[in-house]
């Protein structure tokens, strides 16, 4: 089913020629030249650098190991590294360590859990504000979890989403609502054809149709009639009283072959047709939704692979090649059209293998640029001349805080059925959720600042009496002040302090204080680290 990627060679450094950044050699990472991910990474770098040359852009320097490590942990498994993970990576001298870290992270269960959450957040955004939609989230995430564990390809997952059974799975127990199923996609959209069509279009094709629901789109070419022709693919999904009816409906075989829809408030019934205006072949015996899924994931569809590639790109590179990511339109061309085309073609050719694409991106030098701005020419996000700083999702924030402070959750806290929940995780989710989809525009609110400065969680984590993790660092008998500060930095920021920082902080902790006050001063250091933008952001 899946093509096997060749293992990265670990036998000594390979010098690889890449026509980028004026320097031809990357002596640090050893790679197998015939690895498609590596080749694709090379393509990325070539195309990005070509634009830099055109625009006379000076890219930022390469990230240091700590920067790369922290960023990649967050992007792939959704949390910062532990102190020991950080120490291990930073002290590793193997030249291909970055590539190996990437592979380890991709093979870990945490990748699956994180990406199940990432895709779920994308596909069922209604769960954020809608109580009823939230109830369906666990089963949806479990379904994604299952598919990702199976290494299902992106087109397989998409097909299943679009053609899945509308019957809630049941084994006749209380746990029914946790059984894996993509039904939440439908439930959250209230089984309405118009919501399903615009959702599928925006999320899976990167095409915004919402405006056209009510009137001819002012800028793009979609007319109201076309919108409803597209919505008609979900004509068989509509149910009466869907909101109030929690009982499974009797299966109506005919419904799955319905392909006509009446436009509301208009005396018109339209038949389903694709976005490009072409008419489906209705004589194949496939259900309407299957016809839709075939078209959407088909090789002839220019949007599917591009939209998927664009989203995965944006997950790592912050800005999409098409930005905003759900607005593929003539008036909004990609920043690097050939690159997008090539990535999309390769993604499709390699069977929509998400991990391959992730590896290509993370192995690229472009991804590995520092987020430090060293030149004015780096300020245009769309040129990718430095890594853009972005916010953390509430899950990433909490998981990182928990990691940094040694907070152990009970099993039930992790329970996704977060309808009504007083756990610290749920509180963080509420306080830090509701961000705009573009994490590069992430805002910090006063309430968040107050919660981080004075709230219970951070207070406990920095309390000498109550924080075991802090106590372990502070009271470790073989540490001096320097070593303790270094441990705090590794725990919170996943790096060692600079010599300036160390000098300043040793001075803060040690000078003019009684021995007892040292401990409190160290807790101050941890407090400051946890409240810093360096900790609270992804860079």
């Amino acid at each position, binding site marked *: 089913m899946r093509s096997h990627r060749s293992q990265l060679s670990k036998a000594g450094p390979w010098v690889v020629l890449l026509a980028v950044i004026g320097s031809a050699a990357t002596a640090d990472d050893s790679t197998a030249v015939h690895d498609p991910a590596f080749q694709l990474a090379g393509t990325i770098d070539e195309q990005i650098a070509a634009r830099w040359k055109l625009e006379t852009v000076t890219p930022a320097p390469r990230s240091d190991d700590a920067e790369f490590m922290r960023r990649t942990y967050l992007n792939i498994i959704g949390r910062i590294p532990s102190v020991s993970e950080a120490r291990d990576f930073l002290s590793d001298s193997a030249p291909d360590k970055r590539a190996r870290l990437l592979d380890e992270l991709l093979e870990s269960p945490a990748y699956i859990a994180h990406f199940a959450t990432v895709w779920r957040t994308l596909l069922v*955004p*209604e769960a*954020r*504000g*809608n*109580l009823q939609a939230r109830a369906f989230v666990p089963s949806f995430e479990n379904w994604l979890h299952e598919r990702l564990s199976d290494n299902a390809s992106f087109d397989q997952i998409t097909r299943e989403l679009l053609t899945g059974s509308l019957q809630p799975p049941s084994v006749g127990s209380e746990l029914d609502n946790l059984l894996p199923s993509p039904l939440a996609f439908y439930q959250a*959209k209230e089984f309405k054809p118009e*919501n399903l069509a615009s*959702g599928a279009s*925006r999320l899976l094709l990167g095409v915004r149709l*919402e*405006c056209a629901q009510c009137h001819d789109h002012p800028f793009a070419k979609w007319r109201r009639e076309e919108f409803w022709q597209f919505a008609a693919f979900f004509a068989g999904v509509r149910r009466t009283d869907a*909101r109030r009816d929690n009982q499974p409906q009797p299966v109506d075989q005919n419904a799955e072959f319905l392909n006509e829809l009446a436009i509301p408030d208009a005396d018109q019934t339209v038949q389903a047709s694709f976005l490009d205006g072409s008419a489906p072949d209705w004589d194949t015996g496939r259900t309407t939704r299957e016809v839709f899924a075939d078209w959407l994931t088909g090789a002839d569809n220019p949007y599917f692979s591009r939209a998927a590639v664009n989203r995965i790109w944006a997950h790592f590179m912050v800005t999409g090649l098409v930005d*905003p990511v*759900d*607005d593929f339109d003539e008036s909004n061309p990609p920043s690097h059209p050939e690159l997008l085309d090539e990535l999309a073609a390769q993604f499709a050719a390699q069977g929509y293998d998400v991990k391959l694409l992730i590896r290509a991106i993370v192995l690229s030098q472009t991804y590995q640029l520092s*987020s*430090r*701005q*060293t030149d004015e020419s780096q*300020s245009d996000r769309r040129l990718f001349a430095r890594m*853009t*700083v*972005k916010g953390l999702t509430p899950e990433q924030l909490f998981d990182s805080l928990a990691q940094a402070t040694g907070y152990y959750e009970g099993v039930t806290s992790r329970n996704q059925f977060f309808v*009504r929940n007083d756990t610290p995780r749920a509180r963080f989710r*509420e306080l830090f959720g*509701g*961000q705009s*989809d573009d994490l590069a525009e*992430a*805002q*910090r*609110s*006063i*309430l*968040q*600042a*107050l*919660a981080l*400065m*004075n*709230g*219970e969680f951070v*207070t406990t984590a920095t*309390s000498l009496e109550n924080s075991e993790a802090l106590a372990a660092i502070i009271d470790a008998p073989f540490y001096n002040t320097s070593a303790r500060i270094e441990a705090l930095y590794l725990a919170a920021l996943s790096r060692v302090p600079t010599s300036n*920082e160390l000098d*300043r902080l040793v001075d*803060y902790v040690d000078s003019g204080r009684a021995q007892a006050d040292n401990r*409190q001063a160290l807790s*101050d*250091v941890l*407090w*400051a*680290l946890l*409240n*810093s*933008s*360096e900790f*609270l*952001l992804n860079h």
Partner: protein
Amino acid sequence: MSRRNGRTKQRLTGPWSRREWLRAVGGTTLGASMSGWMHSLADDTAEHPDRKRACILLWMTGGPSQLDTFDPKPGHENGGEFKPIDTSVPGMQISEHLPQLAAHGGEMALLRSMSTGESDHTRATHFVRTGHVPQGPIRYPTMGSLVSKELADPSAELPNFVSISPYRFLSPAAYGPGFLGPQYAPMVVGDERAAAGAAMDDYEASLRVENLELPDGVELKQAEARLGLLQELEARFRSERPDVPVRSHRTAYESAVRMMRSEAVSAFRLEEEPDELRDAYGRNRFGQGCLLARRLVERGVPFVEVSLNGQGGAGWDTHQDNFERVRQLSETLDPGWATLMQDLKSRGMLDSTLIIWAGEFGRTPKINNMTGRDHFAEGWSTVLAGGGIRGGQVVGKTSDDGMKVLERPVKVADFLATICQALGIDTDVQNMSNVGRPIRIVEPEAEPITEVLA
């Protein structure tokens, strides 16, 4: 300083701690005494000719029964157990259980013909509070966020939107800033975790700002030292990364610390008010919430909402035992709201403060077999009073049995347009949504109820 569990809590400000702080950082001293300065500030704010309008939304969670409050039907069996009483306005009658409000009839405009079509809690709450039914991916901002954004003073020490005791459980999206972003989120005081299950008279604990005070065990000196450390640590990272999230982090922390240190935070010290006044508002979360609202508006906060949730959270959702429960709720509502209006009036603030009374829908005129009333959105009531409103009138009319609107149906958009006009807000202002579509504050087809606008 407040006391909790017998321990004195440290504050970053307060008469003695502030002096200590000033000494520590070498700042200037204040000339006048604390309370004297506050009082003159309050006067100044109230009478300043350029004072922008403010808004207080009194939100009745669960859908308040119109027949048992502002649209009595004495001549019909649907009218139920309550009798109507006269208000100070001839011909305008309201429930007998709102006697104090009756004296303020001349300041109130009753809208009896709300006709909004949504009778599900989640959808209706969202509809009335944001102007839109929940729809796909667009995250509509709540009224308070939209309004406070327009009326905000960016240099203010207090947040521009405060929500007191909201019960958000049924419709969380209807209480947030949506696509306007977290900087327009309300500061929530006494949220449902505090509200649910707590006794109605346990108001002291719940009407605080969470996390505004230093945590137990952290002394002032340590707090200042930590903040100084944080500043230093931030400097290098910040200088090399001019991104939005970094800047926003800085602004939020600066504002939070400013708020912690500000005198304006004294708004939350209800103990500064005379006992008789606190009694008049009612010693319960809603009554004291109204008092807090007045103090916040006095200090320049442009939008405050106070929710009346009753015991169960959605207290007005009286499917059972309607009359007993509405009577009890009215006994909380009446003194709270009436005292609020009287208090604002005596401080010269009523003319510049719009008060809105609303829930997500009304209740069925026909009484069900549990002596209750169910959801009803075809003809229900809201009230507008105060700034920008010509009071002493009734808009719209329902049939004698309460089942239909006979005159002047008012849609949600019309209602919101009226509110905006009363506040002097341009409804054509557009905000960029999270799907890239600009969205007006109120849709252009809305017709404000010009009769009630002053």
